């Protein structure tokens, strides 16, 4: 039972992060390898807002979320916009460089020590007993809830929202979309903000749950296989992929070797690339486009 809960929590962590990868990839065909770093930056921003708005945790959290949305838009405006039209690989390397830069900045500003935003906010993280003898931390439960809400609203937004439809159009054919009067730069900026937003939620909740340090970038990177296993251009796929990766990780750690934690998602990734490189729900012609 505890294992199932662990899987659910880990899967929702991965899913919440993976939808950031999927959003950006689906809309602009860019693989954002700085997603983990952006997520970490958001969590550090929470640390700062927590100290400036001491005693108002909700206010601090929303301020940090607002800031990270701004960061996402700025990343597009000042960096990725310059990379449009370049080789897909150049854009990926630009995000890698951005990640290195952000890692440096976070250490310079907030130091490399493990920090605990939960104590700075004055929040407690009680453990809740579930039926069946399992336990889940409050933040873990929140994570699952947030992921469910995020996916629900994202799917609805992409399906029914005016800008959501535009985003899908831009992802399918940027040229035609632009000719129909869709503002591609605005679309891409929104995709980056949305992806940073979901990443920020994941980053903050993880930081509230288990503290904040440079290792968070690894969690971000480990969520990437989840996105790819499901298919890089499919949101529903990301959910399925996260479940598979999380289940594999939790079970292998429990039954085989705890050290495997770092490597299991990548093993799943390799297996998927061998069997079905475009992912469970991805479109097949994606492969030739990149």
């Amino acid at each position, binding site marked *: 039972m505890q294992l199932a809960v662990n899987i659910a929590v880990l899967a929702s962590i991965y899913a919440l992060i993976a939808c950031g990868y999927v959003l950006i990839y689906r809309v602009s065909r860019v693989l954002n390898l700085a997603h983990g770093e952006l997520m970490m930056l958001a969590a550090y921003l929470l640390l700062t807002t927590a100290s400036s708005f001491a005693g108002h945790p909700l206010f601090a959290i929303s301020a940090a979320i607002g800031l990270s949305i701004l960061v996402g838009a700025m990343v597009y405006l000042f960096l990725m916009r310059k990379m449009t039209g370049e080789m897909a690989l*150049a854009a990926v390397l630009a995000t890698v460089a951005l990640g290195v830069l952000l890692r440096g*900045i976070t*250490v*310079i500003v907030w130091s490399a020590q493990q920090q605990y935003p939960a104590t700075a906010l004055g929040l407690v993280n009680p453990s809740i007993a579930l039926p069946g003898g399992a336990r889940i931390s409050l933040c873990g439960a929140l994570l699952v809830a947030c992921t469910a809400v995020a996916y629900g609203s994202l799917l609805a937004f992409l399906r029914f929202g005016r800008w959501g439809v535009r985003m899908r159009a831009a992802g399918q054919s940027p040229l035609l979309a632009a000719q129909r009067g869709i503002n591609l730069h605005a679309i891409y900026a929104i995709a980056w903000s949305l992806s940073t937003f979901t990443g920020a939620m994941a980053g903050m909740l993880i930081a509230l749950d288990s503290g904040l340090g440079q290792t968070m970038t690894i969690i971000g990177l480990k969520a990437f296989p989840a996105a790819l296993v499901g298919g890089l251009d499919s949101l529903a796929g990301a959910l399925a992929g996260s479940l598979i990766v999380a289940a594999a990780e939790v079970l292998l750690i429990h039954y085989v070797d705890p050290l495997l934690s770092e*490597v299991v998602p990548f093993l799943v990734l*390799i297996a998927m690339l061998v069997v079905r490189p475009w992912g469970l729900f991805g479109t097949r012609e994606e492969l030739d486009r990149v």
Partner: protein
Amino acid sequence: MSRLPRASGHFRTSYAQDFRLIQTPLERRWLAALLVALLTFPFIASPFLTDLASQALLAMVGAMALMLLTGFAGQVSLGHAGLLAAGAFTAGILFRETGAPFWMTLPAAALVGAFLGVVFGLPSLRLRGLYLAVSTLALHFLVAYVGGEYESKRGFSTGIVIDPPVIAGKAVTDPRAWYFILLTAAVLTLLVCLNLLRSRSGRAWAAIRANETVAEALGIGVAANKLLAFVISSMLTSLAGALFAYYRGFVSVEAFSLFLSIQYVAMIIIGGMGSVLGAILGAVFVTLFPYLIEAVMQLLPGAGAYAGVMFAVNYAAFGVVMILFLVLEPQGLVGIWRRVQTYFLLWPFKHKPVAGARR
């Protein structure tokens, strides 16, 4: 290999002439001067500078190997650190477990590298671009995991210590001796790369990079040549890793993080894609960069506050430089160099004549 047209006077009238590595007497003289400079360098420079030069030479081997794969064959790899780690660990493990001398561990490292080259290369038969990059990234983590597992299971949790190699009955510890060993390695790698590139496989890689379908139609074995590129590149990288292990006297999985892969990719980007000279320049740049930043930081007032987070300052500056190169100068240092060259070649004119102009 495509050569830039000469300013004047030097015409190549046969293929043999076109393929020659050293084309003009002037080039020969410059090369001789460079060689003399490289050979006398450790006797003039301080041990610190010699060590820096050795690091740069070591980086060159890896960078040229990656350039061969990414810059010429067009196969992206983000798992370079994994291959370096494989070479280093092969040398380390063989030394620890069997006490093998370095003339046995180096070929063993090359063999392991060749094997891993096949493993890293197999996805390339099916995947391209981004997906290939991702698969090499995943393999990097796999290799790092195996190395870490060995370290912890055998009780070398802090790392494997390797004795310096013994050549002619003497242990090599002198920085100068190391400089010459690494110089030899770098020059040999350079020759291997240049000769490969002007051979049949080099031309095959250029064709594959340009267009796989056309290459296949021209009768080039795409799969075999891709794998060959991976195997040769991985062998060279693995050798560089083994040399690195001996040079440091120490192997630990921490040294081969993802950041190292990023650094190598940065080398070939900053240097300039598709140019062996670019790999060399990029390797020098990236190796010297942290020291440069440190020197600059010491000149700035109030730098003392950052002494504790120097590595983070390095990270940030490195990210900025990489972004600047990607955005402003995608051709890299070689692009700058060529532009300067063209400026002087064309002087006093600004532009090339339109007719017969070739780029």
